[in-house]
């Protein structure tokens, strides 16, 4: 689709301060995607979604069975953009301070020093987040929303960019604490990796027999460029028809489900659409961007009362029924 039409080079000549030209960001996204796909076989769409989430200042929830490469995906993206990467394995006995950090008494200086927790990273992987008790979950989710951490009355800003990629274990449901609905809402996207196809898996096996490609993965850009790219994404124009379209989609889900999409969800949808527009080389969002992002951005925010219909089905219906502006 992107190849079929020429990218206009207009209105990108004088980007705002700190922002990059649209074409630069577009190229950057392609480079990251290519780089990551060296490690992750298949799942091109998921990779794109994670990249647009990072650019759109969102967080990602990966809902999957173990061993499909969730951690590898997060790590390869972090490496590609040359950002700090930290990983928290959530367990039932994990404490909030294990995530945020703790004040430690320094015997030499005879003062308390803050030992920052794993949350202080550019890209944080929260593995099996639903295994930790709600209190610990809340610590991470609070950091996601505020982009800052408060311990013992001191508030500390988290680094920029800050993106949480949390995974959720879909098996063993009796040993997990389900994420509260309100907290799921804080993730911009919920993605599924799923198993690779036999061909993909064969290729994956071929790559990982020797050295794991993640070890030789190099960065294609740096942290500053990523920050600038995020700046660019936020300047993408969202015209009134597109806003109306998003609002109508949300309204549809509210009318056809027990709990529909929250306004926070609609905001996330438009941010994702902005990022999506940039990856397609446009400085304006079109309904197609919204349509591409809606299934992953809206589905997990919808609570249905029926057993046979889930949020995904409601969003599919909405996309089918709501007329495009």
């Amino acid at each position, binding site marked *: 689709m992107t190849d079929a*039409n020429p990218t206009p080079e207009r209105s990108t000549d004088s980007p705002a301060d700190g922002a990059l030209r649209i074409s630069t960001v577009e190229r950057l996204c392609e480079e990251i995607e290519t780089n990551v796909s060296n490690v992750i076989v298949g799942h091109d769409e998921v990779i794109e979604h994670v990249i647009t989430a990072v650019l759109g200042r969102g967080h990602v929830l990966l809902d999957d069975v173990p061993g499909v490469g969730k951690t590898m995906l997060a790590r390869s993206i972090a490496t590609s953009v040359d950002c700090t990467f930290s990983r928290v394995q959530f367990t039932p006995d994990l404490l909030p301070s294990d995530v945020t950090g703790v004040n430690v008494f320094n015997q030499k200086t005879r003062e308390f020093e803050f030992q920052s927790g794993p949350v202080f990273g550019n890209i944080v992987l929260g593995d099996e987040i639903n295994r930790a008790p709600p209190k610990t979950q809340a610590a991470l989710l609070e950091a996601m929303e505020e982009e800052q951490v408060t311990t013992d009355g001191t508030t500390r800003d988290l680094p920029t960019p800050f993106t949480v990629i949390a995974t959720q274990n879909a098996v063993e449901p009796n040993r997990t604490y389900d994420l509260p609905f309100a907290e799921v809402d804080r993730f911009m996207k919920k993605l599924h990796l799923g198993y690779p196809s036999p061909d993909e898996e064969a290729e994956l096996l071929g790559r990982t027999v020797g050295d794991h490609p993640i070890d030789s993965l190099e960065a294609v850009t740096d942290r500053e460029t990523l920050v600038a790219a995020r700046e660019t994404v936020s300047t993408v124009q969202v015209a009134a028809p597109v806003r109306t379209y998003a609002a109508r989609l949300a309204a549809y889900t509210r009318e056809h489900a027990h709990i529909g999409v929250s306004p926070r969800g609609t905001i996330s949808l438009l941010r994702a659409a902005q990022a999506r527009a940039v990856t397609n080389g446009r400085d304006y969002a079109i309904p197609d961007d919204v349509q591409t992002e809606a299934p992953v951005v809206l589905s997990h925010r919808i609570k249905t009362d029926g057993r046979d219909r889930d949020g995904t089905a409601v969003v599919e219906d909405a*996309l089918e029924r709501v007329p495009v502006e």
Partner: protein
Amino acid sequence: MSTDPSSHTGQRTISIGTDRLVGTGGIRLLALACILVLTGSYVAVLYDITQVVGGSRSLFALVGLMLLAATVLARVIRPRTAGVLALSAAGIGFAYYLTSAGVELGVVLSSTDALLSDTVALATGLPLLRMVQAGIWTLGFAPAPVFLSWYLAVRGRYGLGVVPGGAALGFLVLTGDAGTIVTLTGILGAIGAIAFGDLERRGGSIGQADLLAVLFAVTIALSLSVTVVPGQPTGPTHLVQGGPGTLEATIDSAPQRSGISGQVDLSPEVRFTVESDRGTYWRTGVYDRFTGDEWVRTGQSQQYDGRLSNPPGTYDTVEQTVTAETRLGIMPVTPQPLSVDGDVTRDTAVSRHGQPRPEAPLEQGDSYTVESAIIDSSPAELRAAGTDYPDEITERYLQLPEDSSSEFADRTDEITAGTDNPYETATEIERHLRTSKDYSLKVSQPAGNVAEEFLLGMDEGYCVYFATTMTQMLREEGIPARYVTGYTTGQRIGEDEYVVRGLDAHSWVEVYVPDHGWVKFDPTPGGGRADVHTDRLQEARANGNDAADTEDSEDVPIDDGNGIDSPGSDPAGPGDPPSDPAPPNETEPGNGSTDDPGSNGTDNGTDPTDSGDPAVSGTSDTDETLSERLVTVVRETGAIGLVFLVALVAGAHRTGAATHLRQGIGRYWHGFRGDPDRDAERAFDRLEGLLARRYRPRRPSESARAYVTSLPETDADDADALDPRVWHVLECYERATYGDGVSRAEADEVIAIVDDLARNQLPIIGRLR
């Protein structure tokens, strides 16, 4: 958020535009206006009545007051209170009416069956004008429906608000007072009120009113083709003497009404014979209320109870025996009748004015005897009678239509300037009419008030015009007078025997003189009338019309000194003193004798083909009639055409035909250019139309890009391939709609592309290229 699904596409933008033009507030105004139209329809009917009997101002004041009160109270009182208020208003109104009609309230309550039968009589076609106190009745009738319907409408209950108004209009339809147009207007108002009220309630848009327009058109078209509104009461027992277009039929169009028409004919057939000591005018009807173009007899008739009221003063009595020579729906008597004897009296009704009438028509050979009072007062006595009229006389016999012009009053004043008393005034008016106007049956009916038109604008007419005008002039001068119809004396065939034919039909005037009673005046010039009538009878005899004579009358020459129908030939002159002073009466026999004497009309015999109808329409007014008719036809056709045009437009809007047409044209012609962005959008809309025809239409939930992407790619089969330029159009469309716009040059380029694509699709040009 608007519920309009795709306000972005061209055709929807227009409907949104009209929505903004006429919002919910506008629809509410339309609904209220429709209620006003409905109210207006029945108030207009009531106004027509008050125009005749007076009280238009009171009516308007009352209606205005009710509208104001309803507007104010709509926010204050609850519907139940309003209903009680309206009911009590109606109750007070009718109580007032009944008391002024002279009916005690107690009587009303005790005789509900009489009240019920009155209502039934009204609802089965008794015109309101026949009511004695029609003016007060309208004032009693109007407030309740006006108040209630407006109150409910202001509260937004349009459907309910139509009920009182519709009931009021329906009642007037049943009485026969509401004509087709008024009824139609009222019904359209009612439909409109309900429809617009519903639109407002359901938050509809004025764009949905197209269905309503179709409904209106259907209603109008149906009512034009099928008219079920009873315009006139048509009593089956009523028998009109003479065929349509004859003078008799005109005078006697219905038992309660006497119409005034244009040109009339005379029937030479014998109606009845009278055996009487005196030859007088034979009265058959008395009318008191003038509407401008017809006379109405107010009040209900009562069964004859053996005696009629006698005149106040001294009088002679005369007895006459009347024998019907044909089927007769009337009962000719010498005024003023005192009693009627005979078999027919069982079925005789007597009007409030003392005129008997058979309830079932008299058959040929039926006869009855009447004793009548003939007022035998000398002119001197009548001159000295003064003006001390009883109240009931002034109440009934001074009515003038409310719209009588001042010219009419001025002219009357001028004519009667030199007179000192009512009798002289009447004589002067009679003399003036006799001398200033000519007798003719060939007149076309004037529009508007007949009395005014005749006095001020016409040179000739027949008895109806003369009598009507004189009655109105007398009333203008404050002298109680009434319009009476009947027959003149007829042909005297024996010592005390008279033959009366259809052509003797006549109308004249009775003037009330205190202490004496009703005195006859005849303002119709005798000479001209006698000529016309003699000619007509001679023609009929020449044509061998058997019905024109009885056995006794056919041998009697019509000019044997007992000349037809002349009051002056009355051998009992004193019986008719009031009209005696006027000389023309006396000249009548002379006039009669100047006619061809001693003939039975043989030498006057004319061409049989036209003899039966001496009053065929004159050629002089044919042209006028034709052009008038043409104008009418054109106007009606125009109106009907307009109605159908509205229906067509609304139907087209409803079915989307107009949209299709616009789209069809729009595919090939871009139209006027404006803003580059709008042009780019419009270009894509056109492209979409083209693609829809070639591939498939875009689904509403499909984005433009998704649509184009789903179409066959460029590398597909050549014939089916998508032109790569389509992508450029899509690109520009997206930038114009969602981005920061396109330049003029880009827009023009896109338009050129779409123009080219469209031409390729044209069946003929596309093949040539």
